[in-house]
């Protein structure tokens, strides 16, 4: 056959050519740039615009950053050192570092306590966030964490958190006993038991057993206050949000309407008006003679706010569950609490995790609003004592940039975690 072939065809290459590199325009950086940056005229124009933006940003920010002064007693000293050059006066950050983080009234010798509580927060949160990596026993520490953190941050006798914990434990034991009969009985019995224990322990009296130096909550400020408000309000609002969502889905009209009105009311007004209520009006609605301090009032209002939003997220998830799940639960003969606890909520919560994380991030950002009602959180510290002081009057960029950076790191971290978790929890087979 080779012969005929040789006759009919004038030339046939008998051997393979060595592989050649693709043309310059089709490989490496050049190809990548051609495809991704200069695919057509419009694209090239976009690229040039983007390049110019980046160039402009870098040239305007870089000298300011590179010439930054990190050590000076005041803005005047900064200006003298710079001698008219462009440069940031970052000395304000190093000098007021503690105030930015802890506020200006937290006793400086006690900074280790909130710092320790902050570190322990990671230990407590880790087993919740990464269930597969850490042993389940660590969840016990997570449950204890609120009491430990309270003891560390506010100080006072250790009896206080222990007795409070005792109430919860008693409530849980009663719940566990009674829940076999009916969920409602267990639930209400648990609550009653907890209150009975708290009432009884009231007779122990005040003591200074293992007391840390107490710190009043109005002495807390800076980024610590944002973190405290964020964690406390988010963790409190999740159970309330679940209850509201279930209430809104309920078939009982009165309960449904109570929940609907609450949710729509809270979602219809800006957070700032609720904070005004906390700072200006709420005191009138409390019993005469008793007086919550601003921190507690703000926690109440932000928790209300967040739980309405979380309720809507969870309601969406409940609605997204296939109807078959509800029917399956019914056909197994489960009653409402059992169906919710065992079938519906585990699935609904899983779907709603990204939404809840979004609400949590939004809420954490919104904690800066407390600066408007004269609480000295991070933004409040900057707008109030630091910018008003004679030394640092006029250092806006450095302080606001620092605040923005701090929030960015935390919020970006949380949203990255949520994306990871979404993938981790995805059990559908795609």
């Amino acid at each position, binding site marked *: 056959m080779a012969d005929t072939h040789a006759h009919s065809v004038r030339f046939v290459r008998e051997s393979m050519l060595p592989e050649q590199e693709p043309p310059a325009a089709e490989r490496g950086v050049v190809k990548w740039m051609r495809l991704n*940056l200069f695919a057509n005229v419009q694209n090239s124009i976009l690229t040039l615009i*983007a390049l110019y933006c980046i160039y402009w940003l870098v040239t305007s920010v870089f000298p300011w950053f590179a010439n930054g002064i990190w050590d000076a007693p005041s803005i005047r000293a900064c200006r003298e050192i710079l001698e008219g050059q462009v440069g940031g006066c970052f000395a304000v950050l190093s000098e007021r570092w503690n105030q930015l983080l802890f506020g200006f009234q937290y006793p400086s010798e006690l900074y280790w306590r909130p710092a320790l509580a902050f570190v322990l927060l990671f230990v407590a949160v880790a087993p919740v966030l990464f269930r597969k990596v850490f042993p389940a026993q660590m969840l016990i520490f997570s449950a204890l964490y609120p009491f430990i953190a309270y003891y560390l941050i506010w100080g006072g006798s250790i009896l206080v958190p222990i007795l409070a914990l005792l109430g919860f434990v008693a409530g849980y034991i009663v719940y566990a006993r009674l829940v076999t009969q009916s969920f409602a009985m267990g639930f209400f019995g648990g609550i009653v038991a907890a209150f009975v224990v708290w009432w009884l322990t009231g007779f122990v009296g005040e003591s200074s057993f293992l007391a840390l130096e107490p710190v009043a909550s109005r002495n807390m400020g800076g980024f610590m206050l944002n973190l405290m408000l964020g964690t406390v309000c988010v963790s409190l609002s999740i159970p309330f949000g679940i209850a509201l969502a279930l209430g809104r889905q309920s078939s009982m009209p*009165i309960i449904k309407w109570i929940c609907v009105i609450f949710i729509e009311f809270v979602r*219809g007004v800006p957070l*700032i008006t609720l904070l005004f209520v906390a700072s200006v009006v709420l005191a*009138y*609605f409390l019993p005469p003679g008793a007086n919550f301090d601003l921190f507690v009032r703000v926690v109440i209002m932000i928790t209300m706010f967040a739980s309405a939003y979380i309720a809507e997220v969870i309601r969406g998830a409940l609605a997204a569950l296939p109807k078959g799940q509800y029917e399956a639960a019914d056909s197994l003969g489960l009653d409402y609490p059992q169906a919710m606890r065992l079938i519906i909520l585990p699935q609904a919560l899983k779907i709603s995790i990204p939404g809840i994380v979004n609400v949590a991030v939004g809420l954490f950002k919104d904690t*800066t609003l407390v600066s408007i009602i004269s609480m000295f959180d991070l933004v409040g510290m900057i707008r109030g004592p630091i910018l008003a002081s004679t030394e640092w009057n006029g250092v806006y960029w450095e302080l606001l940039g620092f605040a923005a950076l701090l929030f960015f790191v935390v919020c970006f971290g949380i949203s990255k975690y949520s994306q990871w978790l979404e993938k981790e929890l995805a059990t559908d087979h795609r």
Partner: protein
Amino acid sequence: MTTLSDPPQSAFKPSMLLNDTRYRGYTFQFIALVCVAALFAYLGSNLLQNLRDAGLVISFNFLGDAANYDINQTLIEYNNQMDHWRAALVGVLNTLLVSFLACITATIFGVFAGVARLSQNWLMRKLMSAYVEAFRNVPVLIWIIIIFTVMTAVMPAPRDFRGEDAAASMVLFDSVAFTNRGVYVPKPIFGPGGWAVVLVFIASLVGAVWYRRYATKLLYETGKLLPTGWPTLAIIFLPAILAYFVLGQPISLEYPELGGFNFTGGINILGSLIALWFALAIYTGAFIAENVRAGILSVSKGQTEAAASLGLRPRRIMNLVILPQALRVIIPPLISHYLNITKNSSLAIAVGYMDLTGTLGGITLNQTGRAIECILLLMAFYLTISLSISAIMNVYNNSVKLKER
């Protein structure tokens, strides 16, 4: 032979209130109602007790008193001798103005960034995701303060426009001045017949919409494709321009001029309005960008391919196939972002823009000390605004929803 019959009805026993599903619902609702009523009664009695102790009464009469303070941006006529109601109304309109502007601008930013995040251009993609992440993850209050500070610190003061070799100058043929007090733009002055030109313009807008509808109808019915681009422009502008010259140029522009302390004449768009407007728009735009991206990605690739196999060109694929489907995913979150903008506009208080929180919840409250009344009214106003916006938007949302499933 056996007959099936219902089990005999047992007589009502009190324990059935808790154990029988038929009655349990009533028990729980009753308990809930009692709890809520008790809570309100408790709060109310505390309030009455506290007010009695302090010797105060709740009364809204102060709203009829003269406000006695001035407001720097009023969309309706207002002076300091008018009452607090009027001041609150000025605030409401200012809130609506900044919300409206910010909603439109945020949508533009959001759509641009959302589409750009899906572009082929790597640099643009990265730049836009940097924008989205940077703005989504920093509190809007910080952005408002930062943008306001930029405005104040970077823009020239009106006094820089003074003198022979002024440090700053007006742009666009000396008609627009960018200052740190805001932007001064020419103001149209309507002479006799001026409104007629405006009416003609509005009529031609309606005409343009009608023309486009007609073109679409013609396309669907006969397959005939009318040009839509330049005729639309012509319909919108030609009659108005004609009317303008026929009526003898009845609309003139009043240019801002430097005089006394400030620019006088023209319209001053306040710096605080601009700062709030852009901060809200850029911040919310970042969220909208994510929704737009998710909306476009939610349309399956098969739709694009199917459209392409029908021979549609890329722009038509976008307009006729992808966008209508993506909009159904985009619009519900878009509504809640519009609501967020309206609510976040209450942060105007940080930059001194006189919105509702600045007038009723700010100066009126400070001056009269009537905290409970002012805050209640403030919440009622915001609730009304929010509920109306969501009602309007829901009507629109229902109209674009899939009709059949």
